[in-house]
């Protein structure tokens, strides 16, 4: 991973989140408590404000500082979960040179595992993990098969999309939506949707770098 790409991704993800305001808010009002978008927006704004501070730093340090900033600005459940994700990525960058796609896939997998542990949650509980876990699996699988980069990125976007959509029919067993029981059925989980938006956006950006 390169610092320049991380910072560029940060900017485009911020735009993508901002343009999903009404959708994320209505998803969260349906089965959450209505603050998911506001919290993400605050986290994104805090990261953007660090742009100049981050740009001269090595990727590991950039990811670590992003994680700490998300931890202190988002709060809620998303704060520690996203922070855990970034800080685990940072650890991977620090301990080895994450340069090949297979390296990135394994760092991503480690980060998803850390989120599972922090949230004491797994696939099928109607959370962000329903997006992240299938993406991690697809990532690992396809990098082992040495798939074409463009196909890989599209496959990751599809895995995220399917994972996010799969939350629609689930009963939540973690997070605020769990209090709804069967009433949560029929609604996509807002955390699964925001994670999918982030992954989709980063993959789109990565596609533009292939040519």
């Amino acid at each position, binding site marked *: 991973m390169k610092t320049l790409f991380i910072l560029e991704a940060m900017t485009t993800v911020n735009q993508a989140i901002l343009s999903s305001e009404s959708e994320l*808010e209505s998803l969260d*009002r349906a089965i*959450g*408590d*209505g*603050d998911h978008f*506001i*919290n993400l927006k*605050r986290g994104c704004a805090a990261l953007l404000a660090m742009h100049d501070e981050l740009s001269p730093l090595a990727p590991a340090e950039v990811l670590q500082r992003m994680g700490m900033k998300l*931890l*202190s*600005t*988002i*709060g*809620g*459940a*998303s*704060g*520690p*979960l996203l*922070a855990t994700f970034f800080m685990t990525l940072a650890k991977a960058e620090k301990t080895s040179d994450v340069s090949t796609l297979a390296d990135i896939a394994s760092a991503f997998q480690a980060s998803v595992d850390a989120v599972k542990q*922090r*949230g004491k949650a797994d696939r099928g509980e109607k959370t962000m993990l329903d997006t992240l876990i299938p993406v991690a699996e697809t990532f690992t699988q396809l990098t082992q098969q040495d798939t074409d980069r463009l196909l890989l990125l599209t496959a990751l976007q599809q895995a995220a999309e399917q994972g996010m959509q799969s939350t629609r029919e689930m*009963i*939540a*067993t*973690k*997070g*605020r939506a*769990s*209090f*709804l*029981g069967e*009433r949560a059925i029929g609604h996509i989980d807002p955390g699964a949707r925001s994670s999918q938006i982030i992954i989709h956006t980063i993959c789109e950006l990565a596609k533009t770098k292939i040519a």
Partner: protein
Amino acid sequence: MKKFINNVDDLLVESLSGFAAAHADLVELHLEPHFITRKNKAENKVAIISGGGSGHEPLHSGYIGYGMLDAACPGYVFTSPSPDQMLAAAEAVHAGKGVLFIVKNYAGDVMNFEMAAEMLPFDNATVLTSDDVAVENSTYTTGRRGVAGTVIVEKAVGSLAETGADLAACKALGDKVNSRTASMGVALTSCTVPAAGRPTFDMGELELEMGVGIHGEPGRRRESMRNADAIVADLVAAILEDLKPARGTEVLLLINGFAATPLMELYLLYNSAAKLLQAQGLVISRSLVGNYTTALDMAGASITVCLLDDEIRQHWDSPVHTAALRWQR
């Protein structure tokens, strides 16, 4: 949305500043990270720290002071505070006997306090409050939520800590009070998160949400509006089914308003609930009625019953001097 706001992003800090100024004799506000401490640091006691999303005032900042909390960490509206707040608060109030966190059982709060506890350089323990019996099948959910019963836990533990009791004893009392306390709420309207600008949920004029949470999260079911006695009967039945108190048990009855229900109606609810408890042979020896754990501008209320014993009664009665609870012996 019609609310007293200048700029929605400044709401929290302006409100905290007003609170700190109004109670300057009791508390001190620290910003970035945000936390509030007692005006005069207590010595030689376990530091009791709580915190959670804002919008539940006077929980938790209103309970800072002699006999209750040493510090509170306010998050944004309905959003857990973050570990940097808890670490800074602990640093400020730690008095050599460890830190006890009192945390309402929500995924976000639990994770943030957990990360803080992992990073904290002092002995620490956590009491998770989970008095809301509206959440059924708790093995399949995040578990029961912490609601108004948290006030009773904070009062009892805060009182014990003033005696110089150690961390383990404070934690044990907190867990005991929590296990003997049950609550359930009902909403007549939604609340509106200021930054969202719209009601969190839609509710018809003739509907109520039975078992609502303090963030406007749904409860057990949506029902048609009924008279107060019928609503109270359902709440009390759910609470007693959980606590299963023996006849003759002494209890504390707390009628808590969510903020937009007048005291007149809260006392009506007290009247109704008290009769039902007495009919079950329970002895209501302590009571509290008012807005103690609110949900922004929600109309509605919760009923909390705590099974007293000599120890809990003693720590409920002991002197307390905070913005929201204040009495002498």
